[in-house]
């Protein structure tokens, strides 16, 4: 059947698809040309020609990719819902600032973002790699070919589909739906599906680009390492690899923690880190990158640890692909809360092939050069920087292995089931599982990160070292003891971690100021390590003493197998129900649910107004009062229930973190009815459930009720009633009575949400016995039962969480100082630092 469809805009899609193919072919071409340039290296003029062609190919690839972005953005911004991507991820009501987020929600858009960053970084490498350009660019272009296939949407026969294009039409994506038998189906597709509400957050506009830049920048050190082994030149690659891995440490670290900040601000799993598989998948490459960075430093200064460096950089980039595999194929389905829904089997095999190819390239290079990789025969001194730095890198690597093993349970469990017959599941307490192991990594790395700076490469004077470190350790011990006592930190391994963090802070500050004389250029390592130690301290303080303050006392006691009644109760009841207007004690506060915003605002959220009061325990005077507005999307994207966003009160030393878990669905629960009250003259009183109101007269002009806009032919009368609640606060309510076109009666209600009060006005004509008509004023009042209007709230206190954020900023700053230092050095290989 061939239908001529009406109302479709096909040219942006065709153009986009054309650029998808161009960009793919260009990357293929670039790979081939650069590769030939390497092979013809001995014939320089010829090789240079190929190199120029390779550059041209890569530039064309970049230009085409940007054109794909423009085409897709055009489709999304113009709401062309005939395209599946626009229909799936956007809608008319989506606020403009989130149009970009539509890119990241979908599989293809985020691949495009990844390719885009590779293009940008590739262009920089093209301009700076010099003698390694042909080889690094061969690798980079090859990876672009692999990524390009992901958005190709190319059919091999009927069953095999390679990648999926973002320009698929809605009617092609959902073939067979009856609606597409109509030529004018576009008239029925009124609106798109809309963006997942969790992504409608400013962090989600900025977090994915930064994270993907972090992912992308692991490719460059990888390309340099392969290029170095390919050429057998182990000097030239050191400086650029070091610079790129410093950039990577900064950007990927920032990206990961932006994800944490997003989780903290807009997800309600109660924190910034949950050891969720998706989080782990991006943390692990960062850890191995940091390990690789340090072994490279060892190589630069002593010539040792080259093999380990090569392995770690290769592993880091492979892990990026592995984490893509984990998060996008849906393999984590059972274990992760926010893994992307998968494209299924096709993508799984596709990614496995790419990982296989990259793994083979790395292995071939390593095996071929294994014997010729320069090594140093002699043994390093025990008191040398390289020895302990190497140990530190190995520990980081082991730490990443542990995280990857637990995260990959769904990957290896079928095999384990086949062997042992057991169907393995993640640990029942995931947080505790990771914390119990990684706390030791934190302790060791925390102590090493400060100590190694005091050591010199090659050898160190033990006595001087002991003196300096003894002093800092003493200060750190006092500091840790003070904090442990003040913050009630008692579990001994966490006390050790506290000491490691304090030691890291004290020793790095001392080192930066006293040993390095605060010379800015040289401060990179001590600032980055100071930041890391501060992060450890922040994590410890905010997580160890994180506690809910919203305990419910209404609960049915349940035994959770905990030791004490208190612990059981805690498990039981971290949610509390707040009925409108009734204060509930929560920690130091009294929380009162005041009311909600009733109708969703422009951002389509309903806001819940909750007042917090802190009272002086002796005088009972209110010393602090503030409002928090946790909000929620009600029934988002056609789902049932609500999707909540937290609202947080920030103090310098703690955060009060609150979110809604449930709220009343008024349409179902509000059963209150209107009651009639007749008022005569001003001053007449109507009694309410929790107060009273006084009739204050009427007026025709100067209307206060904003909901009523007078229309032509209206006769109207506004009634004024003063409402007094239990605290004798006065508010006014102004129902309007209207006669339209002298023929029929209408009204406009007024409401007071704090009291759940609805008022309507009416005029009644009464015939009395004398045959005379009198006009009576009737006020119809409805008050929702406060028991019918409630929210279920959870409130957590995070102490000293700002220490964590501060630490991350300091650490990233340290990376950039080091980067500046590396770039400003003329000689790359083993010069300074001795």
């Amino acid at each position, binding site marked *: 059947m061939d239908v001529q469809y009406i109302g479709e805009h096909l040219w942006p899609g065709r153009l986009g698809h054309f650029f998808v193919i161009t960009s793919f072919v260009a990357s293929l071409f670039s790979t081939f040309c650069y590769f030939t340039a390497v092979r013809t290296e001995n014939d320089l003029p010829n090789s240079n020609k190929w190199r120029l062609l390779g550059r041209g190919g890569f530039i064309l690839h970049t230009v085409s990719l940007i054109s794909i972005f423009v085409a897709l953005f055009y489709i999304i911004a113009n709401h062309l819902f005939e395209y599946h991507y626009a229909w799936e991820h956007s809608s008319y009501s989506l606020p403009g600032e989130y149009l970009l987020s539509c890119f990241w929600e979908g599989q293809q858009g985020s691949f495009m973002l990844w390719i885009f960053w590779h293009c940008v970084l590739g262009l920089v490498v093209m301009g700076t790699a010099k003698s390694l350009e042909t080889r690094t660019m061969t690798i980079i272009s090859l990876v672009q070919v692999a990524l390009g296939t992901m958005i190709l949407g190319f059919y091999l026969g009927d069953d095999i589909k390679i990648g999926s294009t973002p320009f698929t039409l809605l009617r092609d994506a959902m073939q067979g739906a009856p609606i597409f038998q109509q030529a004018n189906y576009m008239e029925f597709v009124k609106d798109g*599906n809309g963006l997942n509400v969790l992504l409608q957050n400013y962090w989600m506009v900025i977090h994915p680009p930064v994270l993907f830049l972090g992912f992308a920048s692991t490719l460059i050190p990888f390309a340099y390492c392969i290029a170095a082994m390919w050429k057998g030149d182990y000097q030239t690659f050191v400086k650029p690899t070091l610079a790129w891995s410093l950039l990577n440490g900064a950007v990927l670290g920032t990206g990961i923690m932006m994800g944490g900040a997003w989780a903290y601000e807009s997800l309600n799993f109660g924190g910034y880190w949950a050891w969720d598989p998706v989080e782990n998948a991006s943390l692990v490459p960062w850890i191995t990158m940091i390990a690789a960075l340090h072994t490279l430093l060892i190589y630069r200064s002593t010539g040792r640890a080259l093999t380990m460096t090569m392995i770690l950089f290769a592993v880091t980039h492979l892990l990026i692909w592995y984490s893509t595999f984990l998060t996008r194929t849906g393999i984590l389905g059972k274990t992760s809360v926010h893994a992307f829904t998968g494209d299924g089997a096709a993508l799984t095999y596709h990614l496995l092939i790419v990982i296989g190819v990259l793994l083979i390239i790395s292995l071939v290079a390593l095996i071929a050069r294994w014997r010729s990789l320069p090594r140093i025969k002699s043994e*390093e001194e025990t008191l040398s920087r390289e020895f302990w730095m190497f140990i530190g890198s190995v520990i980081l690597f082991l730490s990443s292995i*542990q995280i990857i093993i637990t995260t990959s349970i769904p990957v290896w469990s079928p095999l384990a089931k086949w062997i042992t017959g057991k169907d*393995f599941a993640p640990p029942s307490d995931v947080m505790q599982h990771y914390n119990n192991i990684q706390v030791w990594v934190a302790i060791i790395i925390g102590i090493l990160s400060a100590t190694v700076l005091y050591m010199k490469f090659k050898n160190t004077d033990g006595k001087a070292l002991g003196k300096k470190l003894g002093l800092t350790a003493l200060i750190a011990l006092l500091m840790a003891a003070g904090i442990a006592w003040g913050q009630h930190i008692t579990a001994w391994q966490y006390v050790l971690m506290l000491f490691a963090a304090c030691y890291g802070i004290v020793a790095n500050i001392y080192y930066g100021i006293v040993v390095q004389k605060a010379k800015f250029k040289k401060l990179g390592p001590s600032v980055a390590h100071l930041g890391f130690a501060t992060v450890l301290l922040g994590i410890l303080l905010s997580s160890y003493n994180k506690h809910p303050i919203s305990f419910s006392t209404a609960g049915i006691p*349940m035994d959770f197998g905990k030791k004490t009644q208190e612990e059981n109760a805690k*498990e039981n009841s971290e949610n509390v*129900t707040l009925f409108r207007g009734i204060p509930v004690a929560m920690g130091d506060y009294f929380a009162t649910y005041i009311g909600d915003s009733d109708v969703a605002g422009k951002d389509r959220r309903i806001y819940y107004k909750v007042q917090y009061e802190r009272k002086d325990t002796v005088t009972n005077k209110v010393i602090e009062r503030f409002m928090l507005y946790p909000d929620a999307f009600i029934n988002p994207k056609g*789902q049932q229930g609500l999707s909540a966003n937290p609202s947080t009160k920030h103090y310098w030393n703690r955060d009060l973190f609150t979110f809604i878990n449930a709220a009343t669905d008024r349409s179902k629960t509000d059963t209150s009815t209107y009651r009639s009250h007749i008022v005569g003259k001003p001053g007449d009183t109507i009694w309410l459930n929790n107060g009273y109101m006084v009739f204050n007269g009427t007026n025709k002009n100067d209307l206060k009720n904003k909901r009523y806009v007078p229309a032509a032919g209206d006769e109207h009368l506004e009634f004024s009633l003063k409402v007094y609640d239990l605290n004798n606060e006065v508010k006014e309510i102004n129902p309007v009575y209207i006669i339209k076109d002298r023929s029929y009666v209408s009204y406009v209600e007024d409401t007071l949400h704090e009291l759940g009060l609805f008022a309507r006005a009416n005029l009644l004509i009464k015939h009395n016995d004398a045959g005379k008509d009198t006009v009576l004023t009737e006020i119809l009042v409805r008050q929702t039962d406060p028991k019918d209007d409630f929210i279920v709230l959870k409130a957590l206190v995070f102490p000293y969480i700002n220490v964590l954020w501060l630490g991350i900023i300091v650490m990233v700053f340290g990376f950039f100082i080091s980067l500046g230092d590396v770039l400003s050095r003329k000689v790359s290989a083993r010069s300074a630092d001795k």
Partner: protein
Amino acid sequence: MKKTHIVLLILVVAAIATIVTVFSDFSTYETFESASKEPGKTYYVIGHLQTDKDMIYDPKVDPNHFTFYAKDKSGNVQKVIFNGEKPRDIERSEQIVMMGYSEGNTFHCSRIQMKCPSKYKKDQIAVGNKS
């Protein structure tokens, strides 16, 4: 043997020891029946929500108490008590993964993970009226 090698050996041994102990941390997927053999021990049970049976969540009584019935993979239906708020969208879930322990005839669960219909199956077209 070099010092580095000795230290590496120690670290690798420590790592293997850690990983072996890590394995004892891992839980397993069970059915209601196999979980009930060891009451009080935490397992994962994969099942489906029984939408035709009662789902009770009344925050006015207790905001941390939600009960429902689920059918596990071997077809047994059991009552489940969840100590938390009713998870959003649970009615639409294709499959639920419950973490908890068995006690008597009920399964007490402290975490529910829902598998919702995948993006592509969820696709429905809103057909509006011709205006």
